[in-house]
Protein backbone atom coordinates (compact mmCIF):
# COMPACT_ATOMS: atom_id res chain seq x y z
CA UNK A 1 0.00 0.00 0.00
CA UNK A 2 1.63 3.25 -1.06
CA UNK A 3 1.45 6.60 0.66
CA UNK A 4 -1.56 7.95 -1.20
CA UNK A 5 -3.70 4.84 -1.32
CA UNK A 6 -3.20 4.65 2.41
CA UNK A 7 -4.71 8.13 2.65
CA UNK A 8 -7.47 7.75 0.10
CA UNK A 9 -9.85 5.57 2.12
CA UNK A 10 -9.99 8.24 4.77
CA UNK A 11 -10.75 10.99 2.28
CA UNK A 12 -14.18 12.42 1.99
CA UNK A 13 -16.08 11.52 5.11
CA UNK A 14 -19.08 13.51 4.12
CA UNK A 15 -20.60 16.13 6.35
CA UNK A 16 -23.72 16.13 4.25
CA UNK A 17 -23.85 12.49 3.33
CA UNK A 18 -22.96 12.67 -0.36
CA UNK A 19 -20.75 9.98 -1.77
CA UNK A 20 -17.31 11.19 -2.75
CA UNK A 21 -15.26 9.72 -5.48
CA UNK A 22 -11.57 9.16 -5.03
CA UNK A 23 -9.40 11.98 -6.23
CA UNK A 24 -7.80 11.11 -9.51
CA UNK A 25 -4.10 10.57 -9.46
CA UNK A 26 -2.37 10.50 -12.84
CA UNK A 27 -2.68 6.98 -14.27
CA UNK A 28 0.27 4.74 -14.91
CA UNK A 29 3.46 4.30 -13.03
CA UNK A 30 5.61 6.66 -15.08
CA UNK A 31 5.13 10.35 -15.79
CA UNK A 32 7.08 13.15 -17.37
CA UNK A 33 7.81 16.31 -15.45
CA UNK A 34 6.07 19.08 -17.44
CA UNK A 35 8.99 21.42 -16.72
CA UNK A 36 12.19 19.39 -17.18
CA UNK A 37 10.67 16.32 -18.85
CA UNK A 38 12.47 14.03 -16.44
CA UNK A 39 10.84 10.63 -16.23
CA UNK A 40 9.23 10.30 -12.85
CA UNK A 41 8.21 7.12 -11.07
CA UNK A 42 4.72 7.55 -9.66
CA UNK A 43 5.33 6.14 -6.16
CA UNK A 44 8.38 8.39 -5.85
CA UNK A 45 6.35 11.37 -7.02
CA UNK A 46 3.72 10.71 -4.39
CA UNK A 47 6.37 10.59 -1.72
CA UNK A 48 7.70 13.94 -2.89
CA UNK A 49 4.15 15.43 -2.78
CA UNK A 50 4.13 15.71 -6.59
CA UNK A 51 7.21 17.89 -6.69
CA UNK A 52 9.75 16.90 -9.34
CA UNK A 53 12.84 15.60 -7.50
CA UNK A 54 15.02 16.66 -10.44
CA UNK A 55 13.98 20.29 -11.01
CA UNK A 56 11.73 21.09 -8.04
CA UNK A 57 8.77 21.86 -10.33
CA UNK A 58 5.53 21.73 -8.35
CA UNK A 59 3.12 19.62 -10.38
CA UNK A 60 -0.59 20.41 -10.32
CA UNK A 61 -2.67 18.19 -8.06
CA UNK A 62 -6.43 17.83 -7.68
CA UNK A 63 -8.34 19.51 -4.86
CA UNK A 64 -8.83 16.35 -2.80
CA UNK A 65 -5.22 15.24 -3.16
CA UNK A 66 -4.28 18.74 -2.06
CA UNK A 67 -6.39 18.46 1.08
CA UNK A 68 -5.10 14.96 1.77
CA UNK A 69 -1.46 15.99 1.69
CA UNK A 70 -2.14 19.13 3.76
CA UNK A 71 -4.32 17.85 6.59
CA UNK A 72 -3.44 15.54 9.49
CA UNK A 73 -3.60 11.88 8.41
CA UNK A 74 -5.16 13.02 5.13
CA UNK A 75 -8.48 13.22 6.96
CA UNK A 76 -11.19 15.74 6.17
CA UNK A 77 -14.92 16.08 6.23
CA UNK A 78 -16.28 17.64 3.09
CA UNK A 79 -19.38 19.82 3.15
CA UNK A 80 -21.46 21.48 0.44
CA UNK A 81 -20.48 18.84 -2.11
CA UNK A 82 -24.02 18.42 -3.43
CA UNK A 83 -24.32 21.98 -4.70
CA UNK A 84 -24.40 22.08 -8.48
CA UNK A 85 -24.46 24.92 -10.98
CA UNK A 86 -27.57 25.86 -12.93
CA UNK A 87 -27.57 27.46 -16.36
CA UNK A 88 -29.35 30.61 -15.24
CA UNK A 89 -28.39 32.62 -18.33
CA UNK A 90 -29.17 29.68 -20.63
CA UNK A 91 -25.64 30.15 -21.96
CA UNK A 92 -24.64 28.29 -25.05
CA UNK A 93 -21.50 28.58 -27.15
CA UNK A 94 -20.30 25.60 -29.15
CA UNK A 95 -21.75 23.50 -26.31
CA UNK A 96 -24.40 24.27 -23.73
CA UNK A 97 -23.21 25.21 -20.25
CA UNK A 98 -25.07 22.15 -18.88
CA UNK A 99 -22.99 19.93 -21.14
CA UNK A 100 -19.77 21.61 -20.05
CA UNK A 101 -20.67 21.03 -16.39
CA UNK A 102 -21.56 17.42 -17.08
CA UNK A 103 -18.23 16.86 -18.82
CA UNK A 104 -16.36 18.53 -15.96
CA UNK A 105 -18.17 16.40 -13.37
CA UNK A 106 -17.30 13.19 -15.15
CA UNK A 107 -13.69 14.29 -15.75
CA UNK A 108 -13.05 15.24 -12.14
CA UNK A 109 -15.52 13.39 -9.95
CA UNK A 110 -16.35 16.75 -8.35
CA UNK A 111 -19.62 18.64 -8.63
CA UNK A 112 -17.93 22.04 -8.73
CA UNK A 113 -14.58 23.80 -9.00
CA UNK A 114 -14.05 24.08 -5.25
CA UNK A 115 -13.96 21.54 -2.42
CA UNK A 116 -14.78 22.79 1.08
CA UNK A 117 -14.03 20.81 4.22
CA UNK A 118 -13.10 20.77 7.86
CA UNK A 119 -10.03 19.01 9.16
CA UNK A 120 -7.03 19.28 11.42
CA UNK A 121 -3.69 20.86 10.77
CA UNK A 122 -1.12 19.71 13.33
CA UNK A 123 -3.94 19.29 15.79
CA UNK A 124 -5.61 22.67 15.12
CA UNK A 125 -9.18 22.45 13.83
CA UNK A 126 -9.45 24.46 10.63
CA UNK A 127 -11.85 25.10 7.77
CA UNK A 128 -10.24 24.68 4.40
CA UNK A 129 -11.19 25.19 0.76
CA UNK A 130 -9.34 24.02 -2.33
CA UNK A 131 -10.05 24.94 -5.94
CA UNK A 132 -10.20 22.12 -8.49
CA UNK A 133 -8.46 23.50 -11.56
CA UNK A 134 -9.52 20.60 -13.79
CA UNK A 135 -13.16 21.62 -13.28
CA UNK A 136 -13.68 24.28 -16.00
CA UNK A 137 -10.30 25.81 -15.21
CA UNK A 138 -11.20 26.32 -11.56
CA UNK A 139 -13.49 29.14 -12.69
CA UNK A 140 -15.70 30.87 -10.12
CA UNK A 141 -19.43 30.72 -10.76
CA UNK A 142 -22.28 31.16 -8.31
CA UNK A 143 -21.79 27.77 -6.65
CA UNK A 144 -18.06 28.28 -6.12
CA UNK A 145 -18.81 31.65 -4.48
CA UNK A 146 -21.58 30.14 -2.40
CA UNK A 147 -19.43 27.24 -1.19
CA UNK A 148 -16.59 29.62 -0.35
CA UNK A 149 -18.98 31.78 1.70
CA UNK A 150 -20.40 28.68 3.42
CA UNK A 151 -16.88 27.72 4.41
CA UNK A 152 -16.10 31.21 5.73
CA UNK A 153 -19.37 31.34 7.66
CA UNK A 154 -18.60 27.93 9.11
CA UNK A 155 -15.17 29.13 10.21
CA UNK A 156 -16.90 32.04 11.95
CA UNK A 157 -19.61 29.99 13.64
CA UNK A 158 -17.13 27.31 14.77
CA UNK A 159 -14.45 29.88 15.55
CA UNK A 160 -11.80 28.24 13.39
CA UNK A 161 -9.03 29.60 11.18
CA UNK A 162 -9.63 29.49 7.44
CA UNK A 163 -7.24 28.35 4.73
CA UNK A 164 -7.91 28.45 0.98
CA UNK A 165 -5.83 26.92 -1.81
CA UNK A 166 -6.66 28.97 -4.88
CA UNK A 167 -6.00 27.93 -8.45
CA UNK A 168 -8.28 29.33 -11.10
CA UNK A 169 -8.47 30.81 -14.56
CA UNK A 170 -10.79 33.45 -13.09
CA UNK A 171 -14.43 34.22 -13.63
CA UNK A 172 -16.78 31.77 -15.34
CA UNK A 173 -17.90 33.32 -18.62
CA UNK A 174 -21.02 31.14 -18.78
CA UNK A 175 -22.41 32.86 -15.69
CA UNK A 176 -21.32 36.39 -16.68
CA UNK A 177 -22.56 38.88 -14.08
CA UNK A 178 -23.48 36.17 -11.59
CA UNK A 179 -19.86 35.09 -11.75
CA UNK A 180 -18.52 38.65 -11.49
CA UNK A 181 -20.59 39.30 -8.37
CA UNK A 182 -18.98 36.31 -6.62
CA UNK A 183 -15.87 38.45 -6.35
CA UNK A 184 -17.78 40.91 -4.18
CA UNK A 185 -19.64 38.15 -2.33
CA UNK A 186 -16.48 36.29 -1.32
CA UNK A 187 -14.70 39.53 -0.41
CA UNK A 188 -17.67 40.57 1.76
CA UNK A 189 -17.64 37.23 3.61
CA UNK A 190 -13.91 37.59 4.27
CA UNK A 191 -14.59 40.97 5.87
CA UNK A 192 -16.91 39.16 8.31
CA UNK A 193 -14.11 36.71 9.09
CA UNK A 194 -11.82 39.63 9.76
CA UNK A 195 -14.38 41.17 12.16
CA UNK A 196 -14.49 37.82 14.00
CA UNK A 197 -10.69 38.07 14.44
CA UNK A 198 -10.07 34.78 12.69
CA UNK A 199 -7.04 34.36 10.42
CA UNK A 200 -7.34 33.69 6.70
CA UNK A 201 -4.32 32.13 5.06
CA UNK A 202 -4.48 32.37 1.27
CA UNK A 203 -2.28 29.86 -0.52
CA UNK A 204 -1.69 30.58 -4.18
CA UNK A 205 -1.27 27.61 -6.45
CA UNK A 206 -0.31 27.75 -10.12
CA UNK A 207 -2.17 29.41 -11.86
CA UNK A 208 -4.53 32.17 -10.62
CA UNK A 209 -5.90 34.89 -12.85
CA UNK A 210 -8.70 37.41 -13.22
CA UNK A 211 -11.68 37.30 -10.91
CA UNK A 212 -10.22 34.91 -8.34
CA UNK A 213 -6.89 36.70 -8.20
CA UNK A 214 -8.71 40.06 -7.88
CA UNK A 215 -10.83 38.92 -4.97
CA UNK A 216 -10.43 36.10 -2.47
CA UNK A 217 -6.89 35.01 -3.40
CA UNK A 218 -5.31 38.42 -2.73
CA UNK A 219 -7.23 39.07 0.47
CA UNK A 220 -5.35 36.74 2.80
CA UNK A 221 -4.18 38.05 6.14
CA UNK A 222 -1.14 36.16 5.00
CA UNK A 223 -0.59 35.46 1.31
CA UNK A 224 1.58 32.46 0.52
CA UNK A 225 2.53 31.15 -2.92
CA UNK A 226 4.05 27.86 -3.98
CA UNK A 227 7.31 28.24 -5.91
CA UNK A 228 6.87 29.08 -9.57
CA UNK A 229 3.12 29.74 -9.39
CA UNK A 230 1.75 32.18 -11.97
CA UNK A 231 -0.56 34.73 -10.39
CA UNK A 232 -1.87 37.87 -12.04
CA UNK A 233 -4.82 39.96 -13.03
CA UNK A 234 -4.47 39.84 -16.80
CA UNK A 235 -2.89 36.93 -18.62
CA UNK A 236 0.55 37.22 -20.19
CA UNK A 237 -0.82 37.01 -23.74
CA UNK A 238 -3.43 39.73 -23.16
CA UNK A 239 -0.73 42.05 -21.82
CA UNK A 240 1.64 41.28 -24.67
CA UNK A 241 -1.10 42.06 -27.18
CA UNK A 242 -2.06 45.29 -25.40
CA UNK A 243 1.34 46.80 -24.77
CA UNK A 244 3.54 44.91 -27.26
CA UNK A 245 6.52 44.44 -25.02
CA UNK A 246 8.59 41.39 -24.22
CA UNK A 247 7.88 40.34 -20.69
CA UNK A 248 10.57 38.99 -18.37
CA UNK A 249 10.64 35.21 -17.88
CA UNK A 250 9.65 35.45 -14.24
CA UNK A 251 6.72 37.80 -15.00
CA UNK A 252 3.81 37.07 -12.62
CA UNK A 253 5.64 34.15 -11.01
CA UNK A 254 5.75 33.76 -7.23
CA UNK A 255 9.24 35.23 -7.15
CA UNK A 256 8.00 38.31 -9.06
CA UNK A 257 5.06 38.65 -6.67
CA UNK A 258 7.35 38.50 -3.65
CA UNK A 259 9.70 41.08 -5.15
CA UNK A 260 6.76 43.45 -5.83
CA UNK A 261 5.23 43.05 -2.41
CA UNK A 262 2.07 41.13 -3.29
CA UNK A 263 2.76 38.08 -1.11
CA UNK A 264 4.33 37.44 2.25
CA UNK A 265 6.36 34.38 1.37
CA UNK A 266 7.05 31.54 -1.03
CA UNK A 267 6.73 28.17 0.64
CA UNK A 268 7.65 24.84 -0.99
CA UNK A 269 4.90 22.24 -0.84
CA UNK A 270 6.77 20.05 1.61
CA UNK A 271 6.89 22.90 4.14
CA UNK A 272 3.31 24.14 3.79
CA UNK A 273 1.94 22.13 6.70
CA UNK A 274 4.54 23.24 9.17
CA UNK A 275 4.58 26.86 7.97
CA UNK A 276 0.82 27.37 7.99
CA UNK A 277 0.48 25.63 11.36
CA UNK A 278 3.16 27.92 12.81
CA UNK A 279 1.53 31.07 11.40
CA UNK A 280 -1.92 30.10 12.62
CA UNK A 281 -0.44 29.27 16.00
CA UNK A 282 0.78 32.85 16.32
CA UNK A 283 -2.37 34.59 15.07
CA UNK A 284 -5.09 32.44 16.50
CA UNK A 285 -6.13 31.98 20.10
CA UNK A 286 -8.61 29.19 20.52
CA UNK A 287 -10.78 31.03 23.03
Amino acid sequence: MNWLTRLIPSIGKEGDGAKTKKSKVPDGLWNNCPACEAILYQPELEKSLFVCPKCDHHLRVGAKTRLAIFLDNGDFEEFGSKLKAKNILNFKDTKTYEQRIKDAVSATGENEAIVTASGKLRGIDIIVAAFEFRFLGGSMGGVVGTKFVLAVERAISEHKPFVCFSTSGGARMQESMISLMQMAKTAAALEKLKEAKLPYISIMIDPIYGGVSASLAMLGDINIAEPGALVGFAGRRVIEQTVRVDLPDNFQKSEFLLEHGAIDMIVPRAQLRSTVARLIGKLYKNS
Partner: protein
Amino acid sequence: MSNQFLEFEKPLADILDKIDALRGASMGDVSLLKEIQSLESEEEKLRKKIFSKLSIWQKVQVARHPKRPHISDFIPRLFNDFDELHGDRQFADDASIIGGLASFEDIPVMIVGHEKGRETSEKVKRNFGMAQPEGYRKAKRLFKLAERFSLPVITFIDTAGAYPGVEGEERGQSEAIAQNLAIMSQLKTPIIVIVTGEGGSGGALAIGVGDHIAIFEHAIYSVASPEACASIVWRSSENAPDAAEAMKVSAQELIKIGIVDEIITEPSGGAHRDYDEMASLVKKSMIDALSKLNQLSTEELLERRYQRLLRIGS
Protein backbone atom coordinates in the same frame (compact mmCIF):
# COMPACT_ATOMS: atom_id res chain seq x y z
CA MET B 1 -22.23 65.17 -36.90
CA SER B 2 -23.29 62.43 -39.31
CA ASN B 3 -19.98 60.59 -38.82
CA GLN B 4 -21.15 60.11 -35.20
CA PHE B 5 -24.03 57.88 -36.32
CA LEU B 6 -23.91 54.15 -35.81
CA GLU B 7 -24.62 51.81 -38.70
CA PHE B 8 -28.22 51.10 -37.68
CA GLU B 9 -28.85 54.83 -37.18
CA LYS B 10 -28.06 55.60 -40.85
CA PRO B 11 -31.75 56.00 -41.84
CA LEU B 12 -31.98 58.69 -39.15
CA ALA B 13 -28.83 60.40 -40.39
CA ASP B 14 -30.27 60.45 -43.92
CA ILE B 15 -33.44 62.20 -42.77
CA LEU B 16 -31.47 64.69 -40.68
CA ASP B 17 -29.23 65.46 -43.67
CA LYS B 18 -32.35 66.13 -45.76
CA ILE B 19 -33.71 68.43 -43.06
CA ASP B 20 -30.40 70.33 -42.99
CA ALA B 21 -30.43 70.72 -46.76
CA LEU B 22 -34.04 71.96 -46.77
CA ARG B 23 -33.30 74.40 -43.95
CA GLY B 24 -30.48 75.88 -46.03
CA ALA B 25 -32.78 76.26 -49.05
CA SER B 26 -36.00 77.26 -47.30
CA MET B 27 -35.39 81.01 -46.72
CA GLY B 28 -38.77 81.22 -45.03
CA ASP B 29 -40.60 79.27 -47.73
CA VAL B 30 -43.74 78.03 -45.98
CA SER B 31 -44.16 74.85 -48.02
CA LEU B 32 -40.58 73.83 -47.31
CA LEU B 33 -41.04 74.54 -43.62
CA LYS B 34 -43.98 72.16 -43.62
CA GLU B 35 -41.88 69.51 -45.30
CA ILE B 36 -39.20 70.01 -42.66
CA GLN B 37 -41.76 69.54 -39.92
CA SER B 38 -43.04 66.34 -41.43
CA LEU B 39 -39.49 65.02 -41.86
CA GLU B 40 -38.80 65.87 -38.22
CA SER B 41 -41.78 63.91 -37.02
CA GLU B 42 -40.80 61.06 -39.34
CA GLU B 43 -37.30 61.07 -37.84
CA GLU B 44 -38.71 61.01 -34.33
CA LYS B 45 -41.01 58.09 -35.06
CA LEU B 46 -38.25 56.13 -36.76
CA ARG B 47 -35.81 56.91 -33.90
CA LYS B 48 -38.29 55.62 -31.32
CA LYS B 49 -38.90 52.53 -33.40
CA ILE B 50 -35.21 51.72 -33.90
CA PHE B 51 -34.31 52.29 -30.24
CA SER B 52 -37.26 50.35 -28.86
CA LYS B 53 -35.93 47.13 -30.34
CA LEU B 54 -32.17 47.30 -30.33
CA SER B 55 -30.38 43.98 -30.42
CA ILE B 56 -27.93 43.34 -27.60
CA TRP B 57 -24.99 43.96 -29.94
CA GLN B 58 -26.54 47.27 -31.02
CA LYS B 59 -26.83 48.20 -27.34
CA VAL B 60 -23.12 47.45 -26.92
CA GLN B 61 -22.47 49.99 -29.68
CA VAL B 62 -24.77 52.60 -28.10
CA ALA B 63 -23.10 52.05 -24.72
CA ARG B 64 -19.73 52.74 -26.39
CA HIS B 65 -21.00 55.61 -28.54
CA PRO B 66 -18.29 58.26 -29.03
CA LYS B 67 -20.75 60.91 -27.81
CA ARG B 68 -22.06 58.88 -24.88
CA PRO B 69 -22.22 61.25 -21.86
CA HIS B 70 -19.45 60.65 -19.34
CA ILE B 71 -19.06 61.52 -15.65
CA SER B 72 -17.51 64.85 -16.71
CA ASP B 73 -20.76 65.69 -18.50
CA PHE B 74 -22.88 64.70 -15.51
CA ILE B 75 -20.95 66.47 -12.77
CA PRO B 76 -21.87 70.03 -13.80
CA ARG B 77 -25.47 68.98 -14.54
CA LEU B 78 -26.08 67.12 -11.29
CA PHE B 79 -23.86 68.66 -8.64
CA ASN B 80 -22.80 72.01 -7.29
CA ASP B 81 -19.38 73.03 -5.99
CA PHE B 82 -17.44 70.03 -7.23
CA ASP B 83 -13.99 69.83 -5.67
CA GLU B 84 -11.94 67.20 -7.43
CA LEU B 85 -9.61 65.24 -5.17
CA HIS B 86 -6.52 63.68 -6.62
CA GLY B 87 -4.11 60.85 -5.97
CA ASP B 88 -3.80 57.61 -4.06
CA ARG B 89 -1.12 59.05 -1.68
CA GLN B 90 1.15 56.18 -2.64
CA PHE B 91 2.14 56.34 -6.25
CA ALA B 92 0.22 58.64 -8.59
CA ASP B 93 -3.02 60.26 -9.62
CA ASP B 94 -4.86 58.10 -12.13
CA ALA B 95 -6.94 60.31 -14.43
CA SER B 96 -9.06 57.39 -15.65
CA ILE B 97 -10.98 57.66 -12.38
CA ILE B 98 -12.37 61.01 -11.29
CA GLY B 99 -13.32 61.58 -7.68
CA GLY B 100 -14.24 64.36 -5.35
CA LEU B 101 -16.63 66.18 -3.06
CA ALA B 102 -19.73 67.94 -4.30
CA SER B 103 -23.18 69.07 -3.25
CA PHE B 104 -26.22 67.21 -4.47
CA GLU B 105 -29.51 68.95 -3.64
CA ASP B 106 -27.61 70.77 -0.86
CA ILE B 107 -26.24 67.55 0.66
CA PRO B 108 -22.49 66.93 0.56
CA VAL B 109 -21.64 63.70 -1.28
CA MET B 110 -18.60 61.84 -2.57
CA ILE B 111 -18.50 61.15 -6.31
CA VAL B 112 -16.25 58.55 -7.94
CA GLY B 113 -16.38 57.40 -11.55
CA HIS B 114 -14.55 56.28 -14.67
CA GLU B 115 -13.80 58.88 -17.32
CA LYS B 116 -12.95 57.62 -20.80
CA GLY B 117 -12.20 61.02 -22.30
CA ARG B 118 -13.60 62.22 -25.61
CA GLU B 119 -10.95 63.96 -27.76
CA THR B 120 -7.85 61.95 -28.62
CA SER B 121 -5.49 63.75 -26.28
CA GLU B 122 -7.95 63.48 -23.42
CA LYS B 123 -8.55 59.80 -24.14
CA VAL B 124 -4.83 59.20 -23.83
CA LYS B 125 -4.65 61.19 -20.61
CA ARG B 126 -7.62 59.22 -19.25
CA ASN B 127 -6.20 55.92 -20.54
CA PHE B 128 -9.61 55.34 -22.22
CA GLY B 129 -11.17 54.93 -18.77
CA MET B 130 -9.10 51.86 -17.96
CA ALA B 131 -7.68 52.31 -14.48
CA GLN B 132 -4.36 51.26 -13.04
CA PRO B 133 -4.12 50.11 -9.40
CA GLU B 134 -3.61 53.71 -8.25
CA GLY B 135 -7.02 54.62 -9.71
CA TYR B 136 -8.72 52.01 -7.54
CA ARG B 137 -6.60 53.02 -4.56
CA LYS B 138 -7.63 56.66 -5.02
CA ALA B 139 -11.25 55.48 -5.08
CA LYS B 140 -10.65 53.46 -1.91
CA ARG B 141 -9.18 56.48 -0.17
CA LEU B 142 -12.21 58.57 -1.10
CA PHE B 143 -14.63 55.84 0.02
CA LYS B 144 -12.95 55.76 3.44
CA LEU B 145 -13.05 59.56 3.62
CA ALA B 146 -16.76 59.54 2.80
CA GLU B 147 -17.34 56.96 5.54
CA ARG B 148 -15.59 59.07 8.19
CA PHE B 149 -17.79 62.05 7.45
CA SER B 150 -20.97 60.06 6.73
CA LEU B 151 -21.25 61.24 3.14
CA PRO B 152 -23.28 59.20 0.67
CA VAL B 153 -21.13 57.80 -2.15
CA ILE B 154 -22.27 57.99 -5.78
CA THR B 155 -20.27 56.02 -8.33
CA PHE B 156 -20.49 56.23 -12.13
CA ILE B 157 -19.37 53.16 -14.03
CA ASP B 158 -18.12 53.37 -17.60
CA THR B 159 -15.07 51.26 -18.42
CA ALA B 160 -14.00 48.47 -20.72
CA GLY B 161 -12.12 47.05 -17.73
CA ALA B 162 -9.06 47.50 -15.57
CA TYR B 163 -5.94 48.19 -17.65
CA PRO B 164 -3.98 45.03 -18.51
CA GLY B 165 -0.36 46.13 -18.36
CA VAL B 166 3.03 45.37 -16.92
CA GLU B 167 3.07 48.24 -14.41
CA GLY B 168 -0.41 47.36 -13.18
CA GLU B 169 0.71 43.81 -12.46
CA GLU B 170 3.82 45.07 -10.68
CA ARG B 171 1.80 47.41 -8.51
CA GLY B 172 -0.88 44.87 -7.65
CA GLN B 173 -3.88 45.36 -9.91
CA SER B 174 -5.57 42.30 -8.42
CA GLU B 175 -4.99 43.40 -4.86
CA ALA B 176 -6.23 46.92 -5.55
CA ILE B 177 -9.50 45.62 -6.97
CA ALA B 178 -9.93 42.98 -4.26
CA GLN B 179 -9.42 45.57 -1.49
CA ASN B 180 -12.10 47.81 -2.95
CA LEU B 181 -14.62 44.97 -3.04
CA ALA B 182 -13.90 44.18 0.59
CA ILE B 183 -14.04 47.79 1.74
CA MET B 184 -17.16 48.72 -0.20
CA SER B 185 -19.00 45.70 1.17
CA GLN B 186 -18.61 47.11 4.69
CA LEU B 187 -18.52 50.87 4.10
CA LYS B 188 -20.71 52.52 6.74
CA THR B 189 -22.46 54.96 4.43
CA PRO B 190 -24.96 54.57 1.58
CA ILE B 191 -23.50 53.76 -1.84
CA ILE B 192 -25.38 54.40 -5.08
CA VAL B 193 -23.92 52.84 -8.21
CA ILE B 194 -24.92 54.05 -11.68
CA VAL B 195 -23.77 52.13 -14.76
CA THR B 196 -23.86 54.81 -17.46
CA GLY B 197 -22.13 53.11 -20.39
CA GLU B 198 -19.91 50.08 -20.35
CA GLY B 199 -19.64 47.98 -17.20
CA GLY B 200 -16.58 45.90 -17.92
CA SER B 201 -15.44 43.21 -15.55
CA GLY B 202 -13.54 43.62 -12.28
CA GLY B 203 -12.49 47.10 -13.30
CA ALA B 204 -16.15 48.14 -13.12
CA LEU B 205 -17.04 46.18 -10.00
CA ALA B 206 -14.07 47.70 -8.15
CA ILE B 207 -16.21 50.83 -7.73
CA GLY B 208 -19.52 48.98 -8.09
CA VAL B 209 -20.46 47.36 -4.78
CA GLY B 210 -23.37 49.23 -3.25
CA ASP B 211 -26.91 49.56 -1.95
CA HIS B 212 -28.74 50.72 -5.04
CA ILE B 213 -27.49 49.69 -8.47
CA ALA B 214 -29.01 51.62 -11.36
CA ILE B 215 -28.19 51.15 -15.02
CA PHE B 216 -28.95 53.26 -18.08
CA GLU B 217 -31.47 51.80 -20.52
CA HIS B 218 -28.86 51.10 -23.19
CA ALA B 219 -25.87 50.46 -20.93
CA ILE B 220 -24.21 47.06 -20.61
CA TYR B 221 -22.53 45.19 -17.76
CA SER B 222 -20.68 41.89 -18.04
CA VAL B 223 -17.97 39.70 -16.54
CA ALA B 224 -15.68 40.40 -19.48
CA SER B 225 -15.97 42.49 -22.61
CA PRO B 226 -17.85 40.67 -25.38
CA GLU B 227 -14.56 40.54 -27.33
CA ALA B 228 -12.67 38.99 -24.41
CA CYS B 229 -15.43 36.48 -23.68
CA ALA B 230 -15.56 35.54 -27.37
CA SER B 231 -11.83 34.94 -27.53
CA ILE B 232 -11.94 32.79 -24.38
CA VAL B 233 -15.05 30.75 -25.18
CA TRP B 234 -15.26 30.83 -28.99
CA ARG B 235 -11.50 31.25 -29.46
CA SER B 236 -12.16 34.23 -31.73
CA SER B 237 -12.96 37.83 -30.85
CA GLU B 238 -15.06 37.98 -34.03
CA ASN B 239 -17.77 36.18 -32.09
CA ALA B 240 -18.19 39.24 -29.85
CA PRO B 241 -21.86 39.74 -30.88
CA ASP B 242 -22.57 36.09 -29.97
CA ALA B 243 -20.79 36.55 -26.65
CA ALA B 244 -22.79 39.73 -25.90
CA GLU B 245 -26.03 37.84 -26.51
CA ALA B 246 -24.93 34.79 -24.51
CA MET B 247 -23.73 36.84 -21.52
CA LYS B 248 -27.02 38.76 -21.45
CA VAL B 249 -25.21 42.06 -21.03
CA SER B 250 -28.20 44.38 -21.40
CA ALA B 251 -29.92 46.30 -18.62
CA GLN B 252 -33.21 44.55 -19.43
CA GLU B 253 -31.65 41.12 -18.86
CA LEU B 254 -29.67 42.14 -15.77
CA ILE B 255 -32.70 43.40 -13.89
CA LYS B 256 -34.40 40.01 -14.37
CA ILE B 257 -31.63 38.19 -12.51
CA GLY B 258 -31.33 40.73 -9.71
CA ILE B 259 -27.95 42.20 -10.61
CA VAL B 260 -29.38 45.72 -10.91
CA ASP B 261 -32.29 47.38 -9.09
CA GLU B 262 -33.37 50.02 -11.55
CA ILE B 263 -33.19 50.89 -15.23
CA ILE B 264 -32.89 54.61 -15.90
CA THR B 265 -34.74 55.41 -19.13
CA GLU B 266 -32.70 57.22 -21.76
CA PRO B 267 -33.95 60.03 -23.99
CA SER B 268 -35.32 58.78 -27.29
CA GLY B 269 -32.37 57.82 -29.48
CA GLY B 270 -30.00 57.29 -26.56
CA ALA B 271 -28.32 59.31 -23.81
CA HIS B 272 -26.00 60.97 -26.32
CA ARG B 273 -28.95 62.82 -27.96
CA ASP B 274 -29.72 64.97 -24.93
CA TYR B 275 -27.29 65.28 -22.01
CA ASP B 276 -29.59 67.63 -20.07
CA GLU B 277 -32.61 65.35 -20.24
CA MET B 278 -30.44 62.36 -19.34
CA ALA B 279 -29.04 64.21 -16.34
CA SER B 280 -32.51 65.12 -15.09
CA LEU B 281 -33.55 61.46 -15.30
CA VAL B 282 -30.43 60.47 -13.34
CA LYS B 283 -31.17 63.15 -10.78
CA LYS B 284 -34.64 61.80 -10.16
CA SER B 285 -33.25 58.29 -9.69
CA MET B 286 -30.62 59.54 -7.25
CA ILE B 287 -33.12 61.48 -5.15
CA ASP B 288 -35.42 58.46 -4.88
CA ALA B 289 -32.59 56.09 -4.00
CA LEU B 290 -31.01 58.40 -1.44
CA SER B 291 -34.27 59.11 0.35
CA LYS B 292 -35.00 55.38 0.55
CA LEU B 293 -31.52 54.50 1.84
CA ASN B 294 -31.54 57.36 4.34
CA GLN B 295 -34.34 55.65 6.23
CA LEU B 296 -32.08 52.71 7.10
CA SER B 297 -29.77 52.55 10.09
CA THR B 298 -26.13 51.78 9.34
CA GLU B 299 -26.61 48.21 10.63
CA GLU B 300 -29.65 47.69 8.41
CA LEU B 301 -27.84 49.18 5.46
CA LEU B 302 -24.82 46.87 5.82
CA GLU B 303 -26.92 43.78 6.46
CA ARG B 304 -29.03 44.56 3.40
CA ARG B 305 -25.90 45.08 1.28
CA TYR B 306 -24.41 41.77 2.49
CA GLN B 307 -27.62 39.81 1.93
CA ARG B 308 -28.02 41.13 -1.60
CA LEU B 309 -24.53 39.84 -2.42
CA LEU B 310 -25.21 36.45 -0.82
CA ARG B 311 -28.38 35.99 -2.88
CA ILE B 312 -26.57 36.29 -6.20
CA GLY B 313 -25.77 32.83 -7.48
CA SER B 314 -27.04 31.00 -4.39
